[in-house]
């Protein structure tokens, strides 16, 4: 994207007024999306974004400026703006870059090579399958979005690394109508893969799943209110651990005392059944990265092992401050943003035992099959999650479906109280976007079937 001698000159300019660290991050992103609603192809969109940001660090202060123009003159100007914000200290005279090998994920069917007509045909297949689910389906909307993101990172340590990532996301939303009014259902499939994704998961199966959820909710009764045991099915429930404890294990929040896990290293913070891992390496997963947005290789980081806090996630800045290595968790939304500590794929490791036994040993409670996102206060660990698909458990059996409601609890309390973890670890097929301080990045989540003895259900039943 940019010649290494140009990068060396830009880094030199960034550090000419002092500074202990400088970095150039360049990005070229091509995206496309298509959307079908009510039988109409509403919209095909294509986008191209390219630019670079220059970061200069002096002590605790960081300067950042970016440009959409990758010419040397423009990069040098950005370097000067960033440097002006961070003066003094430093003493780096010259930067010599060495290219690091990066094992980028191979993509078999590049989305940009798929004909637009074929993309449109795929949307139609999913729509037909959704509408085929029954006369109560009133609407089906199908969308596909893909992007290819090429990044380059060069810094004053001499690091030079490039990566090339392709992601794909397919979503079906349905509205079903019946005696109880209108209900919605959706299914999302997303991966760090190309069009080969559809070899494993047909568009028809995605459409059918969204329709099934909407129809199911027509017969659903309002969720109850109050505290009760909750069994969370394998897969998407991992978002709960992403929110309820993952954020609290991000070193920037720990550093600012904005985490309930600050100062707890080595302590028992969870049930001995709980091991939580963040791992950017698994190819194909939605949160997969070969290198993070600071150029460092991602790795498997065990955050909590058998209930004991064993590690935080780090970006370059915080790791330096603590005189330790990074963990490959420095990420940013685009070249317009500063990197910060972010998760990649976060999951709870498999325990042992049969998921059916977890339900069978729960006399009365809630079985949650789909969560629809949530929010957490990292300072207290308090969280709220929406239940997309959930059921009552009565006498150890899954019975009636329930309408939307919220799960309310406290992350550390939940971690300590988990009393059953089955062996059926699954990554969620439809990872989402995680927002933090105004930046949004794709993250994967997963978990095995598990039980929390008591969570507050905020349902709408009188």
């Amino acid at each position, binding site marked *: 994207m940019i010649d290494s001698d140009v990068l060396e000159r830009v880094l030199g300019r960034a550090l000419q007024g002092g500074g202990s660290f400088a970095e150039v991050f360049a990005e070229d992103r091509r995206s496309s999306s298509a959307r079908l609603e009510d039988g109409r192809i509403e919209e095909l969109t294509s986008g191209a974004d390219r630019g670079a940001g220059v970061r200069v660090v002096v002590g605790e202060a960081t300067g950042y400026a970016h440009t959409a123009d990758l010419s040397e003159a423009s990069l040098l100007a950005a370097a000067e703006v960033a440097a002006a914000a961070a003066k003094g200290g430093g003493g780096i005279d010259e930067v010599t870059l060495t290219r690091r090998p990066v094992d980028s994920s191979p993509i078999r069917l590049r989305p940009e090579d798929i004909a637009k007509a074929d993309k*449109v045909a795929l949307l139609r297949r999913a729509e037909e399958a959704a509408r085929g689910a029954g006369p109560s389906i009133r609407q089906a909307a199908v969308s596909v979005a893909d992007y290819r993101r090429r990044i380059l990172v060069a810094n004053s340590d001499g690091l030079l690394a490039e990566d090339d990532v392709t992601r794909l996301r397919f979503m079906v939303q349905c509205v079903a109508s019946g005696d109880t009014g209108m209900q919605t259902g959706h299914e999302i499939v997303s991966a760090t893969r190309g069009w080969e994704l559809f070899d494993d998961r047909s568009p028809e199966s995605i459409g059918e799943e969204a329709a099934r959820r909407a129809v199911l909710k027509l017969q659903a009764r309002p969720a109850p209110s109050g505290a009760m045991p909750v069994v969370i099915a394998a897969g998407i429930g991992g978002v709960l651990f992403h929110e309820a404890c993952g954020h609290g294990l991000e070193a920037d929040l720990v550093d600012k005392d904005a985490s309930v896990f600050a100062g707890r290293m080595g302590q028992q913070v969870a049930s001995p059944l709980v091991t939580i891992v963040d791992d950017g390496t698994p190819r194909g997963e939605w949160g997969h990265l070969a290198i993070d947005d600071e150029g460092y290789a991602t790795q498997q980081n065990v955050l909590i092992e058998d209930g004991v806090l064993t590690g935080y996630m780090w970006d370059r800045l915080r790791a330096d401050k603590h005189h330790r290595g990074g963990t490959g968790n420095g990420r940013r939304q685009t070249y317009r943003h500063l990197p910060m500590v972010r998760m990649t794929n976060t999951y709870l490791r498999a325990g042992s035992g049969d998921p059916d036994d977890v339900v069978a040993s729960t006399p009365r409670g809630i079985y949650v099959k789909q969560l629809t996102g949530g929010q957490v206060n990292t300072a207290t660990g308090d969280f709220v999650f929406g239940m997309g698909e959930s059921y009552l458990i009565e006498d150890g059996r899954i019975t009636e479906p329930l309408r939307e409601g919220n799960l309310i609890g406290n992350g550390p309390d939940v971690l300590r109280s988990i009393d059953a973890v089955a062996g059926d670890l699954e990554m969620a097929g439809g990872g989402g976007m995680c927002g933090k301080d105004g930046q949004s990045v794709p993250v994967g989540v997963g978990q095995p079937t598990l039980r929390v003895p008591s969570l507050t259900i905020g349902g709408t039943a009188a």
Partner: protein
Amino acid sequence: MSGTAVDTSLVGLAEGVVARAEPGEELEAFVARRRRTTVGVRKGEVETVEQATTAGIGVRVVVDGRQGFAYAGSLDDDAVALALAEARDNAVFATPDDANGLARPDGVVAVELPGVDEALAGIGTDRRIELALAIERAAVATDRRVTGLRSASWSDVVAESAVVTTTGVRALDAASFWSASADVLVGDGDEVQESYGVRVGRSLDEEPDVEGAGREGAERALALLGASQPASRRVTVVLDPHVTGSFLSLIGQTLLGDAVLKGRSPFADRLGEPIAAPGLTLVDDPTDPDSPGAGRVDGEGMATRRNALVEGGRLQGFLHSTWSARRAGATPTGSAVRDYASTPRAGTQALILATGELDLEALLAAAGDGIFVQGVSGLHSGTNPVSGDFSVGISGRAIRNGALAEPIREATIASTLQRMLLDAVGVGSERVWLPGGTGSAALVIEGVSLSGS
């Protein structure tokens, strides 16, 4: 970029693209440029200085009712040419829709707004740092239990955009904004709480109340200390203006032409009917210069206007883009929202709730017993905008004998948006402007189901 005056080259660039339209082709170019500078401080020192300059173009093509769109995140000739070629190609695959088409000027004259404040556009980094430090100082000085800030930041923005179409639109808009925000941590014994405060404005005509943001963040966090879970029951709730604002934006989403046409609004068939308590009036008015969302033209270049949504409790209208107005056979409302990377859609720009007679103290006194809600979480995951059902996590204070009492947490309130509007028995007398452009106020709602222990 100096940014002190409207940059006419944006219009020139848009005109250049539109001039390339082929016969039978409607073409729209939306060009935007934005400079945002943010200074973050921590413990009395500068932590970050970020200067972000963004420019991009969105090109929309309509041929025989087929619409195609493409964008570029830069304004160089190659990127613009690629966007135009891709937009044309994308149109080929779209389904024809006779409601597709670009905006046509309808005689409504765009209001004059202050535009870019020269003083704000020319603010220096030293002054920004002073302002950011003042936010942090004010938060720390509020109470000895303030343990620190997760962030204290000052941010200012100069934004310009131009829309030109083959259908006669040639519009320019420019504005400046500032915001001061504080994310404050407080502690007492082992307990830690966190909350935020924010102030927004469009100019430096008055001294920015940055201390207010710091103090508000600290006070909101302090109020949460020692919170306990309340008992489940049916209660009257008083929403603080921030919380009212969150609900107003949800309600706003149900009053958009797109949602109504697609059967996604519980109010779709209720035009002219009472849908709210008689005391409730809600407008979307981007012509109000006090709103942080004020603008002369919408995302399609139509002049903005004051649109009544609910007046005296009665549903008066919906907000439309050109597409939804045509499809619905409705009068245009100038309510298309977008950025350069997206096609225009109907949206709220400056939702404003008409204020009532009573101040907060009087509202609490009138409520007697209930809950003062200062924070909500899970608003989007917990709301079904189609059916109107919602269930959200709340934090705040109990109201006892008409006054604020102990803090509460780990509780939810549930109702439907429809019920909530009908049960909104009181609106506060103080208007608070929120970053999204919303003019909010405290709101009293009766008969809400509270779920706790």
